[in-house]
């Protein structure tokens, strides 16, 4: 019998993942053993510290290019995207942890207690709101970190589930409009499970396809798939059907049409900080995985998948832009905007080479900051019943609260891609390489849909500034320190990345090398 040799494990490279998972476990223990009153003050710093520690490890790993035990690839894109997820998650966590806007925060612990009932208030007083949300967020972040570094489809699938399951739960935790929130969570869960099945089915087919490699064993790690794409003797139907199904699983998470249907309902129903978290971090994770799958595993089939995914991208942009036009709820509007942005990101994914890769990563970071800032403002516009998300309620906001209306106007202009905001530079970063790579039709579609999309954004701007405030115009709550911090970071990043994008672009370009 051969002596069993432990595979070499680079623990430093895995440290960010280990830290997040460890922090999540500690978070669960805190929920179990720490008195209710103290849970919030313990959980929030714990989660933030974990994010900070993980981020530090990512920075320390900056030059690392290794594959650890075959399933985790630590390379430039991994570290860049992990860093992005951690930073954006920290911002989202600030929104999650905010207790000053509303006593007890936006989350509920017990689904049976109705909002604003005496029980609800008592719970808010005593427990400072639910604490479960922190380990859930931490677990999700940990899953995302694995997701973007997974080096085989199976690890990727597990990571997908690891970060999806907490998200389903998080969606159901809204303290107000509870039914909407639970319905959203249910839909997200059902459809997410459905999409996971597609992914798994595709995985199986790819595995079958790699069996056709004569000289090496079948497997679903990306190096094997990459080799199989060009040399496998198995039926290419397996490859193409598998590739399609894997793509569908990922496109679902990325909210690309026609797999976007869950997005508006879930974005609207989920508690707003969680929506922000999904819009920023899930997007980074999903596109990180898409980039790896299509740039590493299926790279040899580029000419085959580009037209199909290009069609998906165009459809996504169209759906996002056209549906956004008639939305009446700010969160749904932002959901469709996020769908359209998924389309622009797909353009970046399909742009060949380093520039496409770095442009997409830049876009993910820039968009994440802006969208979190947008949802931060949404948490502030409220009346007695919580957030006032119907657009008619935002009419005349500019007169009531010029500061926040200005901030939101700036964010909307960034979404619309006006120069001097990150929206412009990031679109430039993905459209430029696509144009250079000959994908002119995608860029034309992108620019045209951007024009359509500018309308709903500007409609909100016009409503805020040019309408007289009515009786139903809610006020803007003065944010607590945490929301202010998140908002300031988001707006500043949007401005800085719009004015001086070079440092981050250079960083992304420097990181744009996959290991295989």
């Amino acid at each position, binding site marked *: 019998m051969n002596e069993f040799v432990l595979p070499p494990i680079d623990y430093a490279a895995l440290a960010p993942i280990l830290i997040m998972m460890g922090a999540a476990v500690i978070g669960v223990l805190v929920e179990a053993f720490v008195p209710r009153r103290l849970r919030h003050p313990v959980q929030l710093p714990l989660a933030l510290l974990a994010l900070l520690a993980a981020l530090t490890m990512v920075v320390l790993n900056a030059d690392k290019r290794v594959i650890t035990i075959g399933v985790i690839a630590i390379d430039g894109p991994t570290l860049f995207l992990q860093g992005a997820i951690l930073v954006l998650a920290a911002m989202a966590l600030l929104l999650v942890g905010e207790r000053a806007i509303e006593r007890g925060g936006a989350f509920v612990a017990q689904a049976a207690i109705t909002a604003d009932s005496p029980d609800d208030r008592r719970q808010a007083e005593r427990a400072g709101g639910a604490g479960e949300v922190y380990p859930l967020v931490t677990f999700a972040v940990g899953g995302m970190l694995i997701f973007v570094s997974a080096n085989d489809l199976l690890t990727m699938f597990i990571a997908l589930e690891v970060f999806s399951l907490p998200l389903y739960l998080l969606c159901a935790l809204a303290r107000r409009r509870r039914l909407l929130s639970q319905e959203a969570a249910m839909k997200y869960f059902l459809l997410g499970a459905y999409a996971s099945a597609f992914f798994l089915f595709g995985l199986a087919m790819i595995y079958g396809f790699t069996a056709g490699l004569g000289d090496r064993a079948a497997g679903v790690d990306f190096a094997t798939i990459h080799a199989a794409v060009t040399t496998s003797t198995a039926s290419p139907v397996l490859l193409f059907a598998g590739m399609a199904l894997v793509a569908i699983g990922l496109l679902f998470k990325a909210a690309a049409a026609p797999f976007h249907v*869950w997005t508006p309902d879930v974005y609207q129903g989920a508690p707003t900080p969680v929506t922000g978290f999904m819009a920023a971090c899930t997007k980074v994770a999903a596109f990180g995985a898409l980039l790896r799958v299509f740039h590493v595993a299926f790279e040899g089939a580029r000419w085959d998948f580009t037209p199909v995914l290009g069609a998906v991208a165009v459809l996504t942009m169209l759906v996002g832009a056209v549906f956004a036009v008639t939305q009446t709820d700010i969160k749904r509007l932002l959901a469709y905007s996020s769908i359209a942005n998924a389309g622009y990101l797909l353009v970046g994914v399909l742009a060949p080479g380093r520039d496409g890769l770095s442009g997409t990563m830049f876009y993910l970071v820039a968009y994440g900051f802006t969208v979190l800032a947008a949802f931060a403002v949404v948490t502030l516009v409220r009346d007695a019943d919580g957030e006032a998300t119907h657009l008619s309620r935002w009419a005349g906001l500019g007169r009531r609260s010029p500061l926040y209306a200005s901030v939101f106007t700036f964010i909307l202009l960034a979404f619309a891609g006006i120069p001097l905001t990150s929206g412009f530079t990031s679109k430039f970063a993905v459209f430029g390489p696509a144009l250079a790579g000959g994908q002119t039709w995608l860029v034309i579609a992108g620019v045209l849909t951007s024009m359509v999309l500018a309308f709903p954004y500007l409609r909100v701007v016009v409503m805020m500034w040019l309408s007289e405030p009515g009786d139903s115009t809610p006020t803007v709550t003065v944010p607590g320190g945490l929301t202010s911090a998140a908002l300031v970071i988001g707006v500043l990043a949007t401005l800085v990345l719009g004015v001086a994008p070079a440092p981050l672009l250079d960083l992304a370009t420097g990181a744009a090398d996959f290991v295989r």
Partner: protein
Amino acid sequence: MDEILTYAQAAPAETISFGTADGLLSSVWLLVAIPLVSAAVLLLLGKRADRWGHWLGVAAVGTAFVLGLTYFFGLRSLDNKSVELSLWDFIAVGGLHVDFGLLFDPLAGVFVLLITGVGFLIHLYAVEYMAHDPGRRRFFAYFNLFVAAMLLLVLGNNYVMLYFGWEGVGLASYLLISFWYTKPAAATAGKKAFLMNRVGDAGLAIGIFIMFATLGTTQYDEVFNNVGALAGGAVLVLGLLLLLGAAGKSGQFPLQAWLPDAMEGPTPVSALIHAATMVTAGVYLIARSNPIFSANHTLQLVVVSVGALTLLLGAIIGCAKDDIKRVLAWSTVSQIGYMFLGVGLGGAAYALAIVHLLAHGFFKANMFLGAGSVMHGMKDQVDIRRFGGLSKYMKITWLTFGAGWLAIIGLPPFSGFWSKEPIVLAAFAHEGWSGWLFGGAALLGAGLTAFYMTRLFVLTFHGPKRWTEEIEHPHESPPLMTIPLILLGIGSLGAGWLLATSVPDWLTATAGLGVLEESHEGALSHYAVTALALTVTALGVVLAWFLFRNGTATTQQPAGVLVTAARKNLYTDTVNEAVFEKPGIFLTRALVYLDNRGIDGLVNGLAAGVGGGSGRLRRLQTGFVRSYATSILTGALLVVAAFLAVQAGWFA
């Protein structure tokens, strides 16, 4: 004089390069920053700064002047008298690189001193002049903004920076012309200035675009070094567009109409912006771009013609006006005509034009402030037919205005003689018959200038009193107004000689200004021209004295064709109206019609299509998980089918 014409030949055309600003000169950006910060403070603090805001404004310009003087002496000690200071990359897109940089050279240096020196005196004057105006703080904020923009204009090291400052001074100018925006005349004048400047600015902007398209840069040194490689046609177009810009800002033909109307602003504004500094920006532009203008003879001829035409136009109209500020305004138009004549002649005449510009800055500012002082004492009356005999009541104003009058008409030894005379001489030296033409125009202009300025002076300060009833006892202005007047008066008298002897030498170090083409033997000798000019001037003075020493009618009298025409601005406004305004309005109406019916119809239709489609498609989003799942399944089938179709080669 002969030395001045020949001094520059020693310096052959060579590659232009600027040194790097270090040491003291590396803080040259403070010149722009200080007034800008002051303007921002005044605007942002609002009413809180009302009590002390004007002093902050004065102090900002005073500091800038002291700094400017320091830098000026700092520059003297350098070999290469031009230093560049690159602050940051202003625009870097593809092949376009625009530096946010400053250039401090002799030309910029003298402008800085003029702007901050005269500007400081006028600021001081305005403290008292605007004392009773509730908007005094706002006024000083705009005034400081103007100084900052004007300094940026002259200090920039490329055309984009110049354009930046150009628009900045424009903005300040419009804000200040319509400072009393509740007065319809002021609001209209602001609008008129804006529109006419738009024409010029568009020319300048297109010129800069062409510069970038053909030369690939807008930096002064690179443009000037490479302009020789351009085709003659390109240089001509470029130069004409720059000239259009210059004509717009400097009130030259055919864009002169806004300048006299700009007198609706407060008088210090007229003195600083619309006499001493901003309106000379066009002269600065041409002098700065001298390698471009010197590269094409046709271009120079156009500049000279514009100058000659405008100087006559302004002088003739000035003779027929009865509003003290409008006479001065038309006189400004005419004097800038002289400067254009100078810069158009090229060679050494560039320096002569700059000398005249500086001298004019003093005496015209002096006279405008004097006019303001008269208005101050006469309850804002501006009609010279209702003045008369004021010399007894306003001694200081009378004396200082007299100094300005002596200076502008060009009697030796006052400054106009030293600055205008050489231009006349240079015009006569122009080759061939055109020398006679331009020299004659300049000479005639000198006579007319003497006539209308004497008319103005005599009607205002001498002869019988023709005051309106409500004025009982005109008073001299307070010291804060008279001190600047006295200083400017001294400047008007003495500065000319000082400038004419030192500035041309000093300016040779400026890029391109040291280059001189072969000078021609003048059509008339130096002494003949001087004698002629003095004779014509004396004639003008004597004629005006003879005609107006006994006052004039207090209302408008019927007059001959020429006077009527002059009263109506030689019908230039009418021409503008007929040629530009009427067709413009027609075109606008036609376009609005087309826009409403055609384009809006199309766009609205498209928008309605998108909106309608969106509204209908929204129903697909039913909220039922089962229908969502179906749509995902459909999508999945389509994607798989598409992949398989690709694999089967159906799309190939």
